[in-house]
């Protein structure tokens, strides 16, 4: 304390003297931040071995004792999700996992479970994604035992109470009927079908499919899929490690003996049923439009993932990217961005999105397309490449912001079938990307002739254009105006 005060005073005094004499200080303030010199940041990403414990029979745990806060946090994930819903029952996995938590358990009615968890200020959640499902827990450390036994009931003895099924179904139906309310929601609802056709990523929950889901369906789903034997658990908090491992093993002892195969890698970029290139104008009377210029791109295991992410960063650069061009230079869009989605197991979407006034849409789209074409025409400049790489490298430690976040990152590698030394080698992988690499992946993966231009908004405004900057949507391919039908059915 005293030393601190003395040092601060000494430093102030030094500053004061400089002020008085005007002499060059040892540390004058530079006139531009580009002249600042920073100490080296030594950051070694955590390695999985520190945290990983294989409890056998498919149960893998990433565990970290964290005595800094009196809390307990856990997540679990396993394979299987909504892509497995049978045709006509779309929404089944989502509803089953939601109601495992919301529908009460054999030992406790749903409202009593809510009340007990609220009393403890704890939370238990269950969820279904497209190819994975899971559960999570957060509570104060003192309540860990009680909350974990409630969790076991939720996972293995859900009651699926009829009144809660009705409530959940009504809420879902209400949401489905309102999914064309904004231009944004309309586009997001309809886009997957354009891209994926009848393949699982293109299938939608509908009023018919959700209405057809019965309690028997949920009970059967839970029995057959519930919690399979192979799963990855993350757990951190204020506990003793070995005792917690024993507790986790006991918690999941009731899980199904049937393992589920991991998600298969899929580097295809075309799926059956995808739509022809051209302009698809979803007509909705709104002053603002939302647009995506898009085609299928890569899955997470594509070897070009890293150079493509760098390309995407360049397309989103504050110096020269799509947003700079469309929003800052031209003042046209509320937002504009490029994207390279890379989900595990199937090709994601690649392209650009923007929202703007209806009559500016054609011109804004032409600017976005110009940028998407430019990146495959010539090499990006050194400064752009360096900005993209530096910003990724420098932001990278942010992914490990809490002990629990560290575990989740590492568990994802294992779960998604990525190399376990991914974070150890990422720095080198990013550093070695060259301008030639960016040009190559842009040419291989950005294919302007394949773009769908999907626009949600007022067709008359969009087609009318703006005399201040002439452009027409017909420049981007055959224009098909689509009158959205029933939002509930996604037609």
């Amino acid at each position: 304390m005293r030393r601190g005060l003395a040092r601060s005073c000494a430093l102030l005094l030094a500053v004061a003297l400089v002020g008085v004499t005007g002499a060059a200080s040892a540390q004058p303030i530079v006139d531009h931040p580009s002249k600042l010199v920073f100490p080296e940041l030594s950051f070694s990403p955590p390695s999985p071995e520190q945290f990983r414990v294989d409890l056998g029979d498919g149960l893998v745990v990433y565990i970290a004792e964290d005595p800094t806060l009196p809390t307990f946090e856990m997540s679990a994930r396993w394979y299987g999700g909504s892509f497995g819903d049978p045709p006509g029952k779309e929404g089944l996995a989502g509803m089953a996992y939601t109601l495992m938590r919301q529908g009460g358990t054999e030992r406790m009615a749903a409202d009593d479970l809510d009340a007990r968890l609220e009393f403890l200020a704890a939370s238990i959640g269950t969820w279904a994604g497209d190819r994975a499902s899971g559960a999570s827990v957060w509570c104060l450390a003192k309540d860990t035992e009680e909350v974990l036994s409630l969790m076991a009931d939720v996972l293995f003895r859900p009651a699926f109470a009829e009144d809660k099924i009705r409530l959940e179904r009504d809420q879902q139906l209400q949401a489905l009927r309102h999914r064309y309310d904004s231009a944004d929601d309309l586009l997001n609802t309809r886009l997957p079908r354009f891209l994926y056709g009848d393949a699982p990523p293109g299938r939608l929950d509908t009023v018919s499919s959700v209405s057809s889901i019965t309690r028997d369906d949920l009970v059967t789903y839970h029995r057959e899929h519930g919690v399979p034997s192979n799963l990855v658990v993350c757990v951190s908090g204020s506990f003793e490690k070995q005792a917690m491992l024993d507790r986790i093993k006991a918690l999941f002892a009731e899980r199904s003996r049937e393992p589920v195969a991991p998600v298969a890698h899929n580097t295809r970029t075309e799926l059956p049923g995808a739509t022809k290139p051209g302009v698809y104008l979803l007509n909705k009377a709104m002053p603002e439009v939302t647009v995506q210029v898009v085609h299928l791109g890569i899955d997470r295991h594509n070897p070009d993932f890293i150079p493509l992410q760098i390309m995407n960063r360049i397309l989103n650069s504050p110096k020269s990217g799509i947003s700079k061009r469309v929003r800052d230079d031209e003042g046209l869009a509320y937002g504009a961005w490029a994207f390279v989605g890379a989900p595990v197991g199937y090709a994601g979407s690649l392209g650009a999105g923007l929202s703007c006034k209806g009559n500016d849409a054609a011109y804004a789209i032409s600017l976005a397309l110009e940028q998407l074409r430019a990146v495959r025409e010539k090499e990006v400049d050194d400064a752009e490449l360096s900005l993209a790489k530096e910003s990724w490298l420098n932001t990278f430690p942010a992914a490990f912001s809490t002990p629990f976040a560290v575990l989740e990152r590492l568990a994802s590698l294992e779960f998604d079938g990525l190399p376990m030394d991914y974070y150890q080698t990422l720095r080198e992988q990013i550093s070695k990307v060259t301008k030639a690499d960016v040009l190559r992946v842009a040419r291989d993966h950005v294919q302007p002739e394949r773009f769908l231009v999907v626009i949600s908004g007022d067709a008359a405004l969009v087609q009318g254009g703006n005399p201040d900057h002439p452009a027409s949507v017909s420049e981007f391919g055959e224009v098909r105006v689509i009158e959205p039908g029933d939002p509930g059915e996604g037609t």
Partner: protein
Amino acid sequence: MVRLARCGMLVLIALVWPVATAMGQDVRLDVKEHTLSNGMRMLVVERHHTPRIACRVFYRVGGANDPEGRTGLAHLFEHMMFRGTRTIGTRDFPSEEKVIRRIDDLMARIDAARRSAADADTARLAMLKAHYQRALDRERNLLVTNEMDEIYSQAGATGLNAYTEPDNTVYMVEIPSNKLELFLWMDSDRMANAVLREFYAERDVVQDERRLGHEGSPYGYFYEEFNAVFYTAHPYRRPIVGWEDDVSRVTRPQAQEFLRTHYTPDNATLILVGDLSAEDAFAQAERYFGRIPRAQEPQADLVTREPVQHGERRITVESTAYPLVGIAYHTPAFGDADCHALDVMSGVLNGKSGRLYRDLVLEKDIALDVSASSDGAKYAGEFSLFAIVKPGHTHEEVEAALEAQLDRISKDPPTDTEMQRVRNSIEAGFVRGLRSNGGLADQLGSYDSLGDWHLLLTELQQLRAVTSADVARVAGRYLTKENRTIGWLVQKRPEGPDAGGDDR
């Protein structure tokens, strides 16, 4: 000598606060506190688990400080703070400054021409606009667009953003721990040398934001109008984004004056949480922020206080949103002992197992959702309830059920179980708030702005001490008919209003 004396006045306090939680475990919160030579406060928490630092600058100025007729200025100004400085965002500031003055002059003449009685003089207006456009083009050629973004982005910063509250404006960014000096350079430069460039374009952006906000959120107009009826005199009655007409008239010189008055080091607190050394941070901050002079005059406190209300107020707003009933009562400002009991009361009413949800949603089945909140702000407080009316039921039914639940609090005070549920929830909320560096920095900043960051800890103890009888007492004291405002949001008819018809 003067400087030595100032050095002697430095306050450097390091306190380790063990906060005993209910289960007897300690949460250690080691906040190091320091005041720079120019009066700027600093709070630092060292947490070394990740090489990142959450940075916040809290300025103790917000929407409530907007001068009369210039509502929205604090918020507009927050936007302007990302446009750069005399160094950042420009190729040649001396030339740009001349263009900026030219733009100010032209804009003043355009505004005057637009508003003059002889606004038929469209030729003159068109000529002024042409000059204005040329000046804008000249300015644009001198700019380095998004330079602040670019510098921070290259450095690996995330979450560069800001927000405006009634009493605070908060600037935030998270940086790698080796880039503390970059943050100090950038944010001290912004405090001392902000340039309000492209001001009038940003003014339009804010108007768009206002329109979009209201169109995108159907409740926007309701809350704005409700608030304007709830307060009659206090500046809290005004929307932070400003009244549309005020925002359309605000000028760059007025914003410049706002900067000079409020963006001074002695009106700000710098909060750093993460992988850093507090001593080093204090010394570095003295180099960068310490060179900025303190305000010439002390910050003026807000004068107008909300007068006592003498009877129930009602308002009806039409919208396409779900129908809603809102009830709000005036309560004391932050710091009053009754605030804690009011907070606990909102906890008793809230949640799926709270009294409101159980009664209105689960049992009576007349509302889709319902919530209560208690907000003791710097100058005044508010206890409010909002419920979404379930289709097929009426506003009268929902209002009566809400009132009945409020009456019940005095007659049927919270049980031990209800009280314990609320205490547990407050405790867990406190602990959750400490998890991330940014979350902790925000909490420290909010309490510091209300007078003292230690309140973060003492408030927790005071909330724990609230009894069921305290809750019943404050319910009787504040939840009175003459102290309330009731708002109904009713569904707008598609064909427009019929005279004298029931428009629900």
